């Protein structure tokens, strides 16, 4: 388990995959591997990133290593553990193709053990809500870089209200977005950066 943890911190993809397989072969439960090695490792990665001790490329490689482990764990999860973790639909706003930020947040969320459905770029409000409902996601996360595209974030909120889905939460982020805009459109949360976004999503899922 320590090997898996360290392997993720160091972004060692093949080693983590091998170690996770070894752990599974030794009858350690998938849930335990997730909760005792994968998630704590990514938590530390997130912390170090937040402190400015490591950088995006290193975060990405840690995430790759974590994914390599996750892929082996997924078929072994029990049904209850799957549901408990929380589902997030993420994408960039309609008309926006800038996805660096969105990709980072998706990685942080997966690192936190959440199930992330990444719809990619230029996602219409209808698609956000349709997929969230279909997949039973609790949170929709929308990112935008352009001031012209951030308007569609408000449309997602309106659509949710229209379809009467009070338990579906919306978090927004991106350079032109701020807390004032978040309040104005009635979104549930605003993430200042990838770390902050990840923390806020976890809060939304708890409450």
């Amino acid at each position, binding site marked *: 388990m320590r090997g898996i943890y360290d392997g993720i911190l160091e972004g060692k993809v093949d080693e983590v995959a091998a170690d996770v397989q070894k752990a599974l072969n030794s009858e350690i439960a998938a849930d335990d591997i997730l909760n005792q090695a994968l998630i704590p490792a990514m938590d530390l990665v997130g912390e170090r990133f937040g402190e400015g001790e490591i950088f995006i490329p290193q975060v990405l490689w840690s995430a790759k290593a974590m994914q390599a482990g996750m892929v082996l764990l997924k078929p072994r999860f029990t049904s209850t553990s799957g549901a408990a973790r929380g589902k997030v639909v993420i994408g960039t706003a309609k008309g926006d193709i800038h996805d*660096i930020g969105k990709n980072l947040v998706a990685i942080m969320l997966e690192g936190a053990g959440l199930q992330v459905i990444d719809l990619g770029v230029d996602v219409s409000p209808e698609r956000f809500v349709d997929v969230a409902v279909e997949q039973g996601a609790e949170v929709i996360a929308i990112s935008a870089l352009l*001031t*012209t595209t951030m308007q569609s974030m408000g449309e997602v909120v309106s659509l949710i209200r229209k379809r009467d889905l009070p338990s579906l939460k919306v978090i927004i982020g991106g350079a032109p977005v701020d807390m004032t805009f978040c309040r104005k459109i009635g979104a549930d949360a605003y993430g200042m*950066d990838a770390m902050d976004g990840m923390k806020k999503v976890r809060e939304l899922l708890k409450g």
Partner: protein
Amino acid sequence: METGSHNHCTPRFRLLDESQILRIHHSALRILEEVGVKINHRGGLELLAAHGGRVKEGGIVRIPSFLVEEAIQSAPSNLIIYNRKKEPAMELGGRRIYFGTGTDLPKTIDLETREIRDTTADDVILSTRISDAMPHIDFIGSYGLPKDIPPGLHYIRCFQLEAENSIKPIFFTAGSEEDLRIIHDMAAVIAGSGEELFDHPFLIHYAEPTSPLTHSEEAVSKLIYCSEKGIPVNYTPALLAGSTGPVTLAGALSVAVAEALSGLVIHQLTRKGAPVITGVAATSMDMLHATASYTAAEFRLTHSAYADLFHHYGLPIWGTAGCSDAQVPDLQAGAEYAFTLLNAALDGANLIHDCGYMGQGFIAAPEMIIFANELIAMVKRYMKGFEIDEDHLAMDVIKAVGPGGHFLGERHTLDFFMKEHWRPGFLNREALPKWVKKGKKTVNDKIIEKALDLSKTHEPEGLPKGVKAELSEIWETANKKTRR
């Protein structure tokens, strides 16, 4: 007589030698031939295919080198850009340097309250007027993305406001081809007719491909429209090394150049000889904050490199300088403005934009246009060099004054002191006691004072009444159409 010597020394700078220029050039050509670019515009794709481009799956087209070489040849190497009154204002080519502001800043530092707030239409008017008053600002960008104008209409409105508040050439962005049409209509009204505008363009459209190696439908449609209508277009990528391009500078440069050149090919295939300005922005993405730097040393390196390359091609060159990653006009801003302006001038870039920019391209601070103007003047003095000839070696004067004398009262000093030495308008030259007596004003205080003064007193040359009215009509129509 003096032979074999030029009697005027000027700063010279180059980054790449001949072989390095060719290396980057060949790398860009290889990318176009072996990797290709994605063209999301049917007409653009078909145009390339019809002329020898090899279309692969997914809208990717591989462009043979001869198309690139032909486009470089046919594109004009010198562009005359006029002002609103059909007077030649800029000659974009060679190593002639011109400076101007940029576009689309969503936030503005309020001149009076110093609050960082949303940009408004009034801010666009103010910055246009300040730019109009500045002798070293040669062209005008919107310098703002006004929040109080409905999205989708602001490009049109900004163009109108800029045209109303200055005669200087306008460097403008647009959302869609529809915006472009309306702006072209406005410009044609100002010029007198579409043909007059074609012959005396006073505007330059700014459009971008999407890194890496992708040309969006909108970008290509605007590129083609500009080529057809003779609207000078500045089609240049903005690439982030490590994110939308390779992290290593040579690779980032090659990708960006490939993007610029593929745009050039489409543009020239549409209409040979149509006016175009090229260049790239390949900068660092901060690997902690995921932000793009406007001033990184790495940006200056790729800037110098592509300038050398495009001088070699003989094409009008876009540039970026006089900008800062700092959120407010502080020491960082001062340092970055100076560093970038000097570099861009040494690079011999022609259309140097984003002067006055703050906050990594998100914040406007009107007084910084004045600060940029001041530093441009200083840089220009530096670039002017000095003369080394009989008059300037001043042997006669030196003999006349002799050891222990002084030069202040000499005729020579009187004759030459103003031409030879630049005096700042805002940078401090005062000794301490006087500076204290006059209120301890920093350069920040002085430029804000000037900006406030200009906001109240500067009267730009307005549009003729009939023209103004016609523009208002075009604006009203566009306004109503969108609100429906």
